[in-house]
């Protein structure tokens, strides 16, 4: 008998169809993957199963847990199911943990509520479970708070909490999305182990098909509230019956049609720079703490070259970007862009600045919400003041908007009227507008869905060709970087640990860290992708 079976479940909130005829089965001891892009209704499915929907939502269809129809349960009856029989693991571990309670007491909570344990017993079991999920010994004592442990460890605590009452089903909603690749590998392995050894079932919700290809027994692919394809993982990946699955898989394995050809001319040379943050320069600060962020970093970018920079969070990628852009100081070494030195502590003339532009990760924070698109895109013209007339500027904004696939009418709108992918296009238009030589892409596609990501990467490749641009492509995601870059450098803790062409690094990594990184990337088996 299935642990969970959802049959013809539909959900309407405020006359908007959120889910439509969703059918889903989870057998005991099985990992079922639920994949889809943002807004496809993955998380709403999870909330529907636990009946945590807003009161004004309308539901039809049935959800069975074992043989009881939990979609008919009252809230009081559901409270006995939640956390005891079915538990939920959230995406954002820090937000899901109460910062004022110790991790042990939070893990013990389900036991106190559902199992009539005494406090002492519950704490004992909680400590055992925390040990089971791989928390190091020194964190197992009673008074450790969530902020004292790393993101990966926080996720382990959440898993421990979801697992401690020995539920029959765990629903994990994007459990690894906010984690680094190497951490992600560990968490996925942990979940797999728990499923194997304890016989629980896991409903794994993720946008990452590669993750599912590695651990799920079955997958269901969702698109705008409907399940478009469902079946054994390998079958779904190999056969790709629906068009949408085909499109998704193509975008995962995306690589631009034609890569750019770097010329031999040096554009940017970063030579042995070191950079640090000082905690506070305030009058009343007791002590100035200094954090070394970059340590003797050297890199070169040639004209028309795409250089990938890969590293996990905290590796100093963003500081490197800021230092190159001339907004963060560095201590020794030099940054030379076309014979001009760049140093944030000195004046940088606008001609030099106008040679480079940037596109940031967060499509929501990169624009002043008070200005209209025309003004936002025209901002870099500040660097070439007086060269262009107002009409020239307007014309060039229109051209730039059309070039990134928007219309010139969009110039009259505000940024909040656009979707994430469109905003990233606008950011690219802003970067293009004064025809720079170098565009720095700081995690520019990381926040986007796979299919949008592929479109943006296509656009970038096309623009690089047309305008003879160089890119510094910064990302935590080696699989994206390797597809678009001519050369890749790998950073760890502020130093460059390895440099080489993308295929070199992927096929024969030399540094230990790179080996670990390459191994941790979830990959869809090549034979599945070739079809047949």
């Amino acid at each position: 008998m299935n642990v969970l079976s959802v049959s013809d479940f539909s959900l309407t909130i405020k006359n908007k169809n959120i889910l439509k005829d969703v059918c889903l089965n989870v057998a005991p001891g099985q990992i079922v993957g639920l994949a889809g892009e943002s807004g496809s209704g993955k998380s709403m499915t999870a909330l529907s199963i636990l009946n945590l929907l807003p009161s004004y939502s309308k539901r039809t269809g049935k959800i069975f847990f074992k043989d009881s129809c939990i979609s008919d349960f009252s809230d009081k009856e559901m409270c006995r199911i939640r956390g005891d029989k079915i538990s939920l693991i959230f995406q954002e571990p820090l937000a899901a943990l109460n910062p004022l309670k110790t991790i042990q007491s939070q893990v013990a909570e389900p036991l106190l509520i559902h199992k009539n344990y005494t406090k002492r017993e519950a704490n004992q079991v909680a400590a055992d479970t925390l040990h089971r999920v791989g928390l190091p010994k020194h964190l197992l004592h009673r008074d450790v708070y969530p902020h004292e442990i790393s993101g990966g460890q926080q996720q382990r605590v959440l898993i421990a909490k979801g697992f401690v009452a020995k539920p029959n089903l765990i629903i994990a909603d994007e459990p690894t999305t906010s984690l680094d690749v190497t951490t992600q590998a560990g968490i996925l392995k942990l979940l797999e182990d728990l499923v194997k050894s304890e016989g629980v079932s896991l409903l794994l919700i993720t946008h990452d098909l590669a993750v599912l290809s590695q651990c799920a027994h079955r997958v269901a692919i969702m698109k705008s509230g409907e399940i478009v394809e469902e079946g054994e993982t390998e079958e779904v990946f190999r056969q790709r019956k629906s068009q949408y699955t085909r499109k998704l898989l193509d975008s995962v394995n995306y690589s631009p049609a034609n890569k750019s050809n770097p010329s031999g001319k040096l554009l940017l040379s970063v030579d042995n720079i070191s950079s640090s943050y000082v905690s506070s320069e305030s009058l009343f600060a007791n002590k100035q703490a200094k954090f070394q962020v970059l340590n003797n970093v050297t890199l070169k970018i040639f004209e028309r070259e795409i250089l990938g920079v890969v590293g996990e969070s905290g590796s100093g990628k963003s500081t490197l970007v800021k230092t190159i852009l001339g907004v963060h100081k560095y201590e020794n070494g030099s940054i030379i862009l076309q014979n001009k030195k760049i140093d944030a502590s000195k004046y940088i003339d606008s001609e030099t600045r106008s040679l480079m532009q940037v596109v940031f990760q967060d499509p929501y924070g990169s624009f002043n919400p008070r200005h209209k698109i025309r003004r936002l895109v025209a901002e870099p013209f500040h660097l070439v003041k007086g060269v262009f007339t107002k009409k020239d500027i307007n014309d060039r904004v229109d051209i730039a908007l059309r070039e990134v696939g928007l219309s010139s009418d969009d110039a009259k709108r505000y940024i909040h009227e656009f979707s994430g992918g469109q905003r990233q296009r606008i950011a690219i238009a802003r970067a293009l507008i004064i025809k720079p030589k170098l565009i720095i892409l700081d995690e520019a596609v990381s926040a986007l869905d796979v299919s949008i990501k592929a479109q943006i990467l296509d656009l970038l490749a096309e623009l690089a060709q047309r305008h003879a641009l160089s890119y510094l492509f910064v990302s935590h995601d080696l699989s994206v970087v390797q597809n678009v870059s001519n050369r890749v450098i790998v950073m760890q803790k502020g130093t460059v640990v390895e440099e080489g062409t993308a295929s070199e690094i992927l096929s024969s990594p030399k540094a230990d860290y790179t080996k670990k990184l390459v191994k941790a990337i979830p990959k869809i088996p090549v034979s599945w992708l070739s079809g047949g």
Partner: protein
Amino acid sequence: MKIPLAFIIGCILSFLFLVMTIVSLFWIPHEVEKLNILERLKGPSYQYFLGTDHFGRDIFSMLMVGGQTSITVALIAVAVGMIFGIPLGLLAAASRQSIWDDLIMRSNDLIFAFPSLVIAILITAVFGPSAINAIIAIGIFNVPVFARVTRGAALSIWTLDFILSARIAGKGSLRISVEHILPNILSLLIVQGSIQFSLGILAEAGLSYVGLGVQPPTPSWGRMLADSQTMISFAPNLALFPGITIILAVLGLNLLGDGARDLLDPRLQDKIR
């Protein structure tokens, strides 16, 4: 677009208050500086809308003229606070974690450390009670309020990516502060302004109540309250009407400011619609 009810009420109250004051510049039902002992302590009637006080002056006319004092004092005090406070706050935020930031914010703390009424009494003790001294006393205390609000809000804007992209476009701190920071914190400052405006009305009433605001015979709401308290047992309307006027004016301004923030913010408009 749906306009929130609270905002409409705030608009109506503030509008009535404003109209009443403007009309009083040209016309009032009865002279307020002439005594008419025969008509003293009359209850509300057709002739005297809200009754008369112990000198036979029309209460409604006095409230109308008193509004002039309240608005002038509170408005100039808010303007003083904004003119000095906002640039100081922007400067502190732009030079965060430097000596300037400390210098500005700690001197603000210094002003905050003194209760405003005590300083107001000090000022009037030295320079004598008058409307101008009341403005100075209330205005000084608005400066650190605006500086703090501005700095706090500006700091959070400074960390956003679009500021970084403005810096990359070669814009300096001054230009970024004016072009990017100020428009994004304006809604907050407007709300703070309306709150300070209503607090200014309260403060002016308070100073007049203890005799440190405008001097007789110019009417003011605070002094009307003070004058009425000995007669509260047999002429409660003397205290009641100035009290209600102060409450309604303060309430109206608060609602107005709150609603204005929601309407001014393009991001919130989607939700209101």
